[in-house]
């Protein structure tokens, strides 16, 4: 089994051996890059089809089911669609608006995609399988690279000289900036507990066995659970997925910041978005869901990379599910959620981690209930916005509460 687990590692080592010693480190890196650049776009291709099909199922329609292997009768249940889409976007005309800032307009998709690949490369996708291992600062690198997304969004939106693009970009940046804070804060809990910024270390720490058959994933602690939920929410927003898809809200902004993109550059944006989603899902998996480790010890024989990709795929399905289910938020709701709910909860979660750390020798049950109470109480308090607690709820268009005194029968009113 170990051989199957380490099959890619061994393969890479053997390949590297074929080259002269001077080149070996470079070749190693190159091989890793190639692998990543092959695997994740592949998953991307798969995801596009899956998403279309799943959404279609949600909406009671068949979805793509025609395209199979060309020139044959094999339909593959429509899974050839990605190839058709890809070919279509590559062959379309690349339109650049006349007023656009051409240079910036050109660079923007690359600023999105390249960092996305870089971010993917730090993920431990299996045991000993990390393309770019920063033993000190892996997570920090990830977040630093993530910053480029915002830049790209801005560049795309601004350079298009289109009001939808600019509005989309502004919304997107505001959203990403706002949610980056809870994102980082919620992952800080894990960093605090593990004491390392390296994703590899973090994952390895979660492979220890608890209660005989469990791997001690962080999600199985009160703070980890809360942190995971917060991280997931923030990740949704970072990836511009529903219900946080305001920057590219089709019904409002056409396609947001990449309204003016077409053809290959559009495909790059598309790719970049999905890669970003994969990356952030991968980080969520590494931080909270034990990375490549199996949930139970008796499942350890399954290769680690399979676990990682399985979890990743579960995440993808989850995101699609969300997209098919939830309505989009309003901008003020979006901001309220980030600043008035998630930020306090994240800070509180940091406190709880501190408490957890210092109560290590306590009775387990007591520790659990203390942490749970500390989290659940404020959750209950924050869960409806503060103002609703202090002010009677007002309805802008509906009539006042039925208890309102009726002075006298009055003539029909023009509603305000």
């Amino acid at each position, binding site marked *: 089994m170990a051989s199957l687990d380490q099959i890619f590692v061994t393969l890479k080592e053997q390949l590297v051996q074929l080259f002269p010693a001077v080149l070996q480190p470079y070749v190693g890196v190159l091989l890793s890059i190639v692998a990543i650049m092959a695997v994740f776009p592949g998953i991307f291709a798969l995801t596009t089809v899956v998403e279309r099909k799943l959404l279609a199922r949600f909406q009671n329609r068949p979805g793509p089911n025609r395209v199979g292997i060309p020139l044959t009768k094999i339909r593959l249940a429509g899974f050839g669609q990605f190839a058709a889409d890809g070919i279509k976007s590559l062959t379309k005309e690349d339109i650049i608006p006349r007023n656009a800032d051409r240079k910036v307009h050109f660079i923007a998709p690359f600023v999105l995609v390249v960092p996305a690949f870089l971010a993917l490369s730090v993920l431990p996708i299996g045991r000993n399988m990390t393309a770019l291992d920063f033993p000190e600062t892996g997570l920090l690198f990830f977040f630093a690279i993530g910053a480029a997304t915002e830049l790209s969004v801005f560049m795309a939106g601004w350079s298009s000289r289109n009001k939808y693009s600019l509005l989309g970009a502004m919304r997107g940046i505001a959203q990403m900036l706002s949610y980056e804070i809870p994102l980082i804060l919620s992952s800080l809990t894990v960093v605090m507990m593990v004491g390392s910024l390296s994703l590899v270390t973090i994952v390895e720490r979660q492979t220890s066995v608890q209660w005989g058959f469990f791997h001690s994933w962080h999600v199985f602690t009160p703070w980890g659970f809360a942190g995971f939920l917060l991280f997931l929410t923030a990740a949704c927003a970072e990836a511009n997925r529903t219900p946080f898809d305001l920057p590219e809200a089709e019904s409002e902004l056409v396609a947001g910041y990449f309204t003016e993109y077409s053809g290959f550059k559009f495909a790059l944006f598309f790719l970049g978005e999905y890669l970003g989603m994969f990356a952030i899902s991968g980080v969520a998996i590494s931080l909270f869901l034990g990375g490549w480790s199996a949930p139970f010890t008796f499942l350890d024989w399954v290769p680690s990379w399979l676990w990682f990709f399985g979890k990743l795929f579960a995440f993808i399905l989850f995101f699609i599910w969300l997209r098919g289910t939830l309505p989009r938020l309003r901008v003020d709701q979006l901001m309220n959620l980030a600043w008035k709910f998630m930020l306090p909860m994240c800070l509180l979660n940091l406190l709880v981690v501190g408490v957890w750390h210092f109560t290590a*020798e*306590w*009775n387990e049950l*007591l520790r659990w209930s203390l942490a749970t109470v500390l989290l659940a109480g404020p959750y209950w*308090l924050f869960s409806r916005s503060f103002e*609703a*607690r*202090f002010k*009677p709820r007002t309805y802008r268009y509906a009539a006042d509460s039925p208890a309102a005194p009726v002075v006298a029968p009055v003539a029909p009113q023009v509603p305000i």
Partner: protein
Amino acid sequence: MTTLPIITLLTLTPILGALVLALGGHRGERPARNIALGFGLLALLETWLLVAGFDGKSAALQFVERHAWIPSLGVEYFVAVDGLSILLVLLSALLVPFAVAVSGGIGDRPRTFYALMLLLQAGLFGTFTALNFFHWFIFWELSLVPAYFLIKLWGGPARRTAATQFFIYTFVGSVAMLLAMQAVFLATGTFDLPKLAELARSGELARGLETKLHWTGLSASALGTVLFVGVFLGFAVKVPLMPFHTWLPATYAEAPSSVTMLLTGAMSKMGVYGFLRILAPIFPGQLRDLLGPLMALAVLTIVASAFAAFAQKDLKRMLAYSSINHLGLCLLGLFAAMQPTANTAGWQTEKVAALNGVLLQMFNHGLTAAALFGFVALLERRAGGLRGLDDFGGLRKVAPVFAGLMGISLFASLGLPGLNGFIGEFLIFKGAFPLAPYAAALSTLGLLLTAIFLLTLIQRVFAGPLNERWKTFPDLTRGELLVFAPAVALMFLLGVAPQLVVRLINPTVIEAVNRLGN
């Protein structure tokens, strides 16, 4: 597993409740009261755990929590309970839900009201469990602040004056105490109360005063007396002892009745607690030197307050003086137990009896007086704010259950055997009479007068022809019965089986008597 820091949890519970009340968005009084009641009952539950886990046979400090806080100032977070503390913690835990359940008709900012009640409880818990002067004092003052606001914001017509008077009085006392204790800190370098008591016993304190504070130009004994008077003032005002009591009737009368329940039931006990926990152990010599005048003050408190109560027309003022009278008995017992005697078993027994009596009296008076003020609260609410002695009459006809339960409480207050008040008084006199015969004999006059004015109360309010105004006076409702019946049942229970309480305090008292020496 380290043990559960139950005392800390206990102190935090009402604070948490206050926070929930302060932050929660519930309008209206009922939900606020229910939340406060819920937290009060939670605290009671925790107290019950504390009592259940308390080793009644040991005089040692239990449930000790000790953490360094400001080491350079000798400040620690040091909480624990012994028999004395646990009794008063229990009392506070009982009274706050009781008072919360009784209160009602708080039209104005009910959430704040109940939050302050809970804060007051936190202050009480803290005061009764803290064993480091520094944070003891914090809680001591913490209990003062909510009380001030409760009186000032929800009190009767003259509440502003009363609240200010209350605050200034107790605060002046506190300041005097704080200054004195700082001097003690300078002399000893510690705020730890048990340690200070030990130093005082070994004479270290006096030596410290001599060497470290000679710059004051006072001799150690004079300085000791000055410090004693400072600390004494703080507690005497709180109890109160007679010349320092003028804040009390006005405060009790003006405070909302449910707050008065806490003021008399629990806060007045803080003073006696201070006497027992701080003054007597740290300044035993000074206390003995001034025993004569102090005893005279105690007797004055007992007798004069009873007479004054007799002259009152306002039920709350009358009961307020009655409270002074009862607490005067506590001090009588306490001072008697400080009387120097031969070191024989007989005298030790008398001292133990006196101190046991003091503690029982504290607990019982807390319960009874709170119940009485609770009844007055109901009376006041039903009569639209009237509470004069002559405003009623013949209520027993229309409200027999009300009259019955309040009558039982009144009899408990005047020390009827079979009800809780008796045993405490008996033990106090059992100890005090041999130790200080004349003071005790004079004090019995207080018992008689108590009977006179309490029976006058019954006669004027409940007996006689029914005042036509109150023809539709409602009897106790089911809910009120649910609140008061347990209190009355507790009075019976403690009257018949005082062992329930004595079990907790007896070893501590024996230990205290041994420590105090002769």
